């Protein structure tokens, strides 16, 4: 079955990982800008990072017939630095016309501070000014509930923001309901220890239904599994879920969301023919 990896930090992965993902059915990867594991010292570092996301990575992915798209921002882990934020925000617009850029992300909060919220709002304004879609990170562990509430509280203040063009990622049991209730897309992240297990992800799908839910590995430089999405397919088959439902979650939902950017294309035209007409 074809699938789309909605959230993979491929700059941290090997070319062998791309091959393994392609062999498991991956036809596209959506890569948000994120934290390098250490704070960058200047906006010049972001220039280089954005070039990597918009030039080098698409070429590397294309060797395996994987379409690579990216989201640009200063990530939440560095959002406390308002001076750096201002400098990076000035540099993002020149990359937005690149063919694989589909929006602003992954923005959001880390420890839910005043500065992080201000940085988040700056990014939303940038996205609206340039008619970009938005991908949002929600904080980890004890900060997730508070951070998700703060995220939604700030988003609803923007009356010209279409919730269908916003994905609030890393949802868990205590946050997925509030995200969907407000009309946003969401993502369940199959990441060891700090996010969601395969079984819990399927539990949430069973409880809330498949609409506007996407699945990702969020594979990065930490312990993570680039082929976690195919593993979820197996978990769903283990419970007797239909192939149609699985395809909706791992392919049709992310496809529908990304197509709104007007820049997303699958690597081969015949893959489009597999899209069910039942997708909402």
């Amino acid at each position, binding site marked *: 079955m074809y699938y789309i990896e909605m959230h993979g930090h491929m700059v941290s992965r090997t070319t062998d990982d791309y091959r393994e993902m392609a062999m498991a059915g991956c036809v596209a990867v959506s890569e948000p800008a994120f934290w390098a594991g250490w704070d960058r010292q200047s906006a010049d570092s972001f220039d280089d990072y954005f070039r990597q996301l918009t030039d080098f990575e698409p070429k590397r992915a294309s060797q395996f017939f994987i379409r690579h798209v990216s989201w640009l921002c200063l990530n939440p882990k560095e959002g*406390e630095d308002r001076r750096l934020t201002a400098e990076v925000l000035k540099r993002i617009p020149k990359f937005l016309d690149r063919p694989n850029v589909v929006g602003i992300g992954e923005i959001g909060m*880390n420890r839910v*501070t*005043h500065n992080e919220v201000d940085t988040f709002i700056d990014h939303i304004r940038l996205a609206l000014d340039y008619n970009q879609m938005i991908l949002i990170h929600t904080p980890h562990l*004890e900060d997730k*509930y508070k951070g998700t509430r703060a995220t939604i509280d700030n988003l609803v203040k923007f009356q010209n923001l279409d919730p269908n063009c916003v994905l609030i990622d890393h949802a868990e049991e*205590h946050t997925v*309901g509030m995200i969907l209730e407000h009309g946003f897309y969401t993502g369940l992240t199959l990441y060891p220890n700090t996010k969601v297990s395969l079984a819990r992800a399927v539990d949430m799908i069973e*409880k809330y239904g498949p609409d506007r839910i996407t699945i990702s590995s969020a594979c990065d430089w930490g312990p993570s599994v680039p082929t976690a999405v195919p593993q979820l397919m197996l978990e769903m088959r*283990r419970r007797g879920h239909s192939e149609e439902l699985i395809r909706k979650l791992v392919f049709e939902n992310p496809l529908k969301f990304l197509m709104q950017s007007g820049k997303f294309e699958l690597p081969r035209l015949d893959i489009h023919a597999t899209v069910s007409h039942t997708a909402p």
Partner: protein
Amino acid sequence: MNKQGRCPLTTSQIIDEYFIENRTRILDVAAYLDRLLRSADSQPAGEDFRMQAFEQALHILSSTEPNKVDHIQLVFSDPTTELKAHLDTKSASGAWNPVPEVR
């Protein structure tokens, strides 16, 4: 939001499929608690805010109420709405520490 969706498996099928892996998880939790009792300094773990939340989670696990995972998620969560004045640490610890918030 509808939360009534059911797992397609029967009770007996769920037990058949998932019992062994969850038995393993319970043993891991038990071993973790035993390890704390065997610590090099014998300090009581219950003084740590993370273990206080852990204890509450264990009580929820042994209850007969539904939606245990939702409740346990909230036990570990920061329930406040006030924004932090400054970044205190880069990474979360897994449980909310109420002490810095009330001083």
